[in-house]
């Protein structure tokens, strides 16, 4: 709403945005970044628009009619938008604080420059050591990150990487992640939405071993330095560059902590890695970033291949066949849920003759929900909206409206290839997980990790 209102205002046409009370600070922050510091904004009373009855809305709009007319017919109010975080001094290298470890941490927490955990003090020496792992200029702007649209420079990436506890050699991965989230298809501007989406970083390529990422047992536990500090870096990037602060710009209803990087156990997989599914060569060092609404229950399967598949299909329905169906229809026309399979289970499928695509097709054909459940979710977006209407409007294909029987079965994916399979976890366990995804709220974006010249030599020097 605030973006659309700002885009129209910037075109010289007065526009009023209607928002729920409590959402004015992020709306003004977004508008300011879009070049409109004084947004015409009308606040709706608590609890929120979505939870109000029609008669309550009729009354609330009538009460606010004079205010609406005033907003259209008077100069935009002079409310100053919340200041974007900015360095106090003129150079990125300026020292902003000096103190011992505790004092530095207290200062950073006070500035809301941290995630609550202690940080590694970003001294110029630490940052410069990390910059030794890229040939890119420190002042290169990788992208402007909404909602503040402040620039993510190579220097600031390194600063936040140091703070997160990353080793200097992780920098090429951090730069690739920053490129991915700066891509408009990721939609950084939605990270602060009430759904509280959390990015999931997936990793492929030889760099997994070179940087000692864990792809095996307990891959999503915080223990391996690379997996957890790289993810922490992304959270700090969201706080310090994108400008997400709870209650001001991050409106997550609950939110959740960052997931450790999900690295693929490529050597244990019977199939080509996920990077190949995404159109890259098998040996590409590739990061993929997207939202992960959950990383789901770690569920058991057993028996022959088809027995595993049946249970996985059922779990897909449980994980993806509820409120996430809204994302499937209403959030950009593409979703990218993740199925995590152990080497044991992927091996059972391969031995039974299933390629990775065969598995995806089987699950697409069998992970089905009654159409009435999908209709229920669509009706929550818009009164009377249903699958028949979604097909008529062209947002879903004909398969979703083959007849008007509410008990007919429809898939929980648009197509089999949307399901991403990552082989990972304890090699001999018969458990899997499914991570739901929220469409263009954290859309899936991949970037190749660009390594500096003499990469292996630099790594060897560090470890000598």
């Amino acid at each position, binding site marked *: 709403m605030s973006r659309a*209102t700002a885009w129209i205002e910037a075109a*010289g046409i007065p526009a009023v945005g209607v928002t729920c009370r409590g959402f004015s600070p992020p709306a003004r922050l977004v508008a300011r970044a879009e070049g409109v510091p004084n947004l015409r904004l009308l606040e709706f009373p608590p609890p929120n628009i979505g939870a109000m009855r029609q008669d309550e809305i009729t009354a609330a709009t009538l009460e606010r009619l004079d205010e609406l007319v005033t907003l259209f*017919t008077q100069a*935009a109010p002079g409310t100053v938008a919340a200041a974007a975080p900015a360095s106090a001094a003129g150079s990125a290298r300026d020292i902003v*604080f000096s103190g011992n470890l505790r004092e530095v941490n207290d200062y950073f927490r006070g500035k809301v420059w941290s995630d609550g955990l202690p940080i590694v003090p970003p001294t*110029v020496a630490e940052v410069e050591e990390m910059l030794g792992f890229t040939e890119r200029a420190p002042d290169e702007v990788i992208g402007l990150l909404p909602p503040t649209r402040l620039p993510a420079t190579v220097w600031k990436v390194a600063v936040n990487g140091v703070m997160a506890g990353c080793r200097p050699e992780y920098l090429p991965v951090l730069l690739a992640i920053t490129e991915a989230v700066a891509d408009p298809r990721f939609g950084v501007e939605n990270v602060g939405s009430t759904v509280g989406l959390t990015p999931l970083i997936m990793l492929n390529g030889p760099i997994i071993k070179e940087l000692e990422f864990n792809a095996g047992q307990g891959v999503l536990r915080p223990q391996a330095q690379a997996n957890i500090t790289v993810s922490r870096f992304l959270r700090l990037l969201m706080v310090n560059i994108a400008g997400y602060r709870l209650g001001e710009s991050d409106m997550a209803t609950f939110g959740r902590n960052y997931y450790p990087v999900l690295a693929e156990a490529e050597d244990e997989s019977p199939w080509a890695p996920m990077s190949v599914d995404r159109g890259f060569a098998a040996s590409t060092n590739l990061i993929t970033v997207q939202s992960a609404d959950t990383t789901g229950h770690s569920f058991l399967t057993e028996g022959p291949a088809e027995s595993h598949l049946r249970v996985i299909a059922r779990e897909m329905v449980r994980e993806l066949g509820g409120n996430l169906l809204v994302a499937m229809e209403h959030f950009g026309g593409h979703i990218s849920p993740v199925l995590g399979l152990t080497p044991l289970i992927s091996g059972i499928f391969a031995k039974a003759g299933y390629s990775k695509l065969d598995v995806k097709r089987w699950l697409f054909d069998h992970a089905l929900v009654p159409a009435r459940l999908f209709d229920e979710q669509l009706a929550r977006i818009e009164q009377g909206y249903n699958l028949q209407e979604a097909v008529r409007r062209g947002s879903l294909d004909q398969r979703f409206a083959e007849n008007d029987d509410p008990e007919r079965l429809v898939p929980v994916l648009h197509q089999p290839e949307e399901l991403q399979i990552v082989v990972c976890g304890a090699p001999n366990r018969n458990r899997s997980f499914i991570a739901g995804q929220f469409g263009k709220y954290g859309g899936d974006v991949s970037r190749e990790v660009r390594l500096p010249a003499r990469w292996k030599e630099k790594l060897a020097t560090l470890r000598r």
Partner: protein
Amino acid sequence: MSRYEVVSPAGDARDARGAAKKTASAAPLAGMNGKRLGLCWTAFTNGDIVLRAFRDHLAGRYPDLEFVELMPGRGLRWGDHPDPSIAELVREERLDAALITAGC
């Protein structure tokens, strides 16, 4: 105890070197009568209900006010997430003002 001299991790608009958007804002309307008002719902539950309620109240007070259902962007439908092309649609529809809602 060691002392640390630290740099800022926060984004700084000055690093953008001109990439940031220029500031702008629109002049207010002289009045509501005879104007073309775009109504745009940009997502989530009940945003459309709020718009229709405002439309009905405004129509009662300003009989000459004309209402236009404004899409949130080119090729989009009411209730979709908006796209910058909404600004072009506003010009093409010769709108004098726009009211934008999102539900929750």
